[in-house]
């Protein structure tokens, strides 16, 4: 080979090597920048599409701006959410960071260690969390299991009465009380229902929720807990004894009472889901009914989360649930709490989000979004905020119902609750439809409860009982408060 050729090939070789080095450097730089970009945390938050979800969605940009953490908020229908969550737990999926936990599922999630306790996080950040602001009954009913706090409440639902002011006036009836009053009993409530029902053919005294298996249980248990009915012999205080106590005279009489209410409801309410009862109250002529507290604001709108006002705006009031003489005033309570799945890879960021979403400031902002469709508070100062009372004038009444509530008694939050609730709802619906007498329905509920509990080693209960009391929760809150 000539010298010229050697030099030429040497230059070519060097050029080639230089090209390779440059390309490699560029590649490394690209990878490094991609990696840096990828390290910006994105939180995946899964929740049910209740009103709180839409309110939270509107205020999330504030959190992102404040922390630099991107939030991917996804909403699902309740059933779909439970299926998605359970699948993610079994497959140990790392991609979900914050979840909304329906309080009736808390026991199952906690016992299976699918979500982590938040107690240590709260203790560390007590100055920010301000546990002393929470109504203890909410934390007790919906966020604790075996002495640990697993969620913080993002939406708390109690139950109260809503009534049509014009129809009650027409019937010559006094408005029900917003504070405890001895005259406001369940017998009086039935009198009201009957009297309003007589006002006209197109007027119904009340509306009930009748669809089985779950919706009917939500409304029915709000009545039965007031009337002194309990599902188990001894729960949640220790020692736990899950011997069913649903086949009692009190229970049968309560079911008869509910059947009586159905006589003065739209007949199709036997198939009503949760929202159907609220829609019926907002659109038909229905005198009085009791339901979950979000319906206080939901019935102001013509449809679910729409701006258009309903025909009854300015024509309804909110009052306390009646009581049963001789029985303690206990109301039903439900809540969605935010928790952290065991397998989340971003637990610290998830905790930051939970603290923010359940804080007084964020909850107030959620209540003041353009729809004004959220007031499901758990922090006491919010119930007393004049700016919020302007939009939700029944907040003081709602606070009373929350403070008198006991979710662990109205719908016992133990691991087998979903199975029991399903069968209970079926029996209630069968009785309502006239396919069984109340006596038969309760007898069948009792025997099936026994079977389910025995099959799943809950009767007799051989596990470890925990003496779950409100006082213990109050002491825990005190310990975790600033």
């Amino acid at each position, binding site marked *: 080979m000539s010298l010229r050729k050697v030099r030429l090939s040497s230059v070519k070789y060097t050029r080639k090597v230089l090209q390779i080095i440059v390309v490699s450097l560029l590649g490394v730089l690209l990878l490094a920048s991609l990696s840096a970009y990828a390290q910006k945390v994105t939180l995946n938050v899964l929740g049910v599409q209740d009103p709180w979800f839409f309110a939270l969605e509107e205020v999330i940009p504030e959190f992102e701006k404040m922390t630099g953490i991107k939030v991917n908020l996804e909403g699902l229908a309740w059933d779909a959410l439970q299926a998605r969550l*359970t699948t993610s737990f079994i497959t140990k999926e790392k991609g979900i960071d914050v979840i909304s936990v329906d309080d009736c599922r808390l026991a199952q999630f906690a016992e299976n260690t699918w979500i982590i306790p938040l107690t240590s996080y709260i203790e560390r950040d007590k100055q920010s969390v301000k546990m002393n602001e929470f109504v203890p009954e909410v934390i007790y009913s919906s966020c604790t299991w075996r002495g640990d706090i697993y969620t913080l409440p993002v939406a708390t639902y109690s139950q109260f009465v809503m009534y049509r002011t014009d129809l009650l006036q027409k019937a010559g009836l006094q408005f029900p009380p917003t504070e405890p009053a001895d005259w406001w009993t369940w017998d009086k409530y039935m009198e009201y229902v009957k009297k309003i029902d007589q006002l006209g053919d197109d007027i119904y005294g009340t509306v009930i929720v009748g669809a089985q298996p779950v919706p009917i249980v939500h409304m029915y248990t709000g009545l039965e807990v007031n009337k002194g009915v309990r599902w188990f012999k001894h729960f949640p205080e220790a020692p736990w004894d899950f011997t069913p106590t649903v086949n009692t005279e009190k229970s049968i009489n309560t079911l008869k009472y509910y059947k009586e209410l159905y006589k003065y409801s739209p*007949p199709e309410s036997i*198939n009503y889901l949760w929202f159907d009862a609220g829609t019926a109250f907002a659109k038909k002529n229905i005198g009085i009914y009791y339901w979950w507290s979000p319906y206080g604001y939901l019935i102001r709108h013509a449809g679910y989360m729409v701006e258009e006002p309903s025909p009854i705006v300015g024509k309804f009031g909110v009052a306390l649930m009646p009581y049963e003489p001789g029985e303690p005033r206990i109301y039903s309570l439900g809540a969605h709490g935010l928790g952290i799945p065991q397998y989340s890879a971003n637990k610290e960021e998830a905790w930051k989000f939970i603290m923010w979403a359940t804080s007084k400031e964020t909850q107030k902002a959620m209540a003041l979004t353009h729809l004004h469709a959220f007031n499901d508070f758990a922090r006491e100062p919010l119930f007393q905020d004049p700016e919020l009372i302007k939009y939700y004038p029944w907040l003081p009444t709602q606070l009373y119902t929350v403070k008198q509530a006991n979710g662990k008694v109205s719908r016992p939050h133990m*691991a*087998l609750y979903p199975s029991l609730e399903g069968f209970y709802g079926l029996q209630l619906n069968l009785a309502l439809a006239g396919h069984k007498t109340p006596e038969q329905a309760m007898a069948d509920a009792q025997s099936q409860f026994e079977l389910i509990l025995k099959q799943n*080693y809950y009767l007799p209960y051989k596990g470890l009982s925990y003496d779950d009391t409100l006082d213990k929760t109050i002491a825990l809150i005190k310990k975790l408060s600033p």
Partner: protein
Amino acid sequence: MRFDASGGDVQKEYIMLNIKRHFLPYWFIGPSLLFLVLIVVYPLGFSLYYSFQIWNLQISAVPLGPAGLTNYINAINDPTFVQAFINTIKLSVSVTAIEFIFGLGIALLLNENLKGVNIIRAILIMPTTVAPMVAGFLFRYLYYPDGLISFFLSSMKIPLPQEGILGNAATALWGIAFTDIWEWTPFFAIILLAGLKSIPAEIIEAAQVDGATFFRTFWHLMLPNLKFVSLIILMIRFMQVFNLFDIIYAETMGGPGTSTRTLSYNLYYRGLVEYNIGYASAIAWIMIIIIAVIINIFIIFSFRGKEL
């Protein structure tokens, strides 16, 4: 076989060619077969195994050990099992039959080459494009006492239950059946129309020339030629209706009482509400066995002497 000086190489080449020819089809269908095994055989095996295990996610995140036949016994002894089974059979048989009869009628009309038949065909297929859950919610509100369907029926002086069609045990199942019929009859119509179009026109014309009435032509020529297609589609649709869940979920959740509760609803409730995996797997296998028996009896009688 070619004989030449290198006879052994030719033979080897011939053998290799035969092997390739023999196994080549398997190479092509292999990926599909693997996919089928993953999405069908594995889940079936998984559910069969766990149907004999105690695995209830309400009480334990992991299986608790063998259950023997307990899950199957519990599933059959469930107070709702008998009613669910009866409802499932009632729904499957009646809906399939009605969809077939109406579908065939529509197919015969569309086969007449009437004016605007292409547009009608396009409109007709639309219900089938609606998701069953959406159809369920739509009809739920149409069936209300003040809903459109109730309005039409009342104006025709047809007495309706005061609870609404879906609120009464006597009419709720028919309400669900009607929703499914509305949605899937066009499917039958389109398939049967294709079957009708495949009948040679000369046979029909010859019959008409010979003076055969429409009924005789239909009964002796069209129906026998449609037999194979009809039986296949009846079989497929029966299995689909047997597993019907979404419309029931959207319209009645199995109520009122147990009047619209089906085996598939029971399966959904045990599996995706109670998360009793063992129990739900047992229900799934009971359903598989029932439908396998029914379909096999159907095939034996329908396709006697013929290969599928």
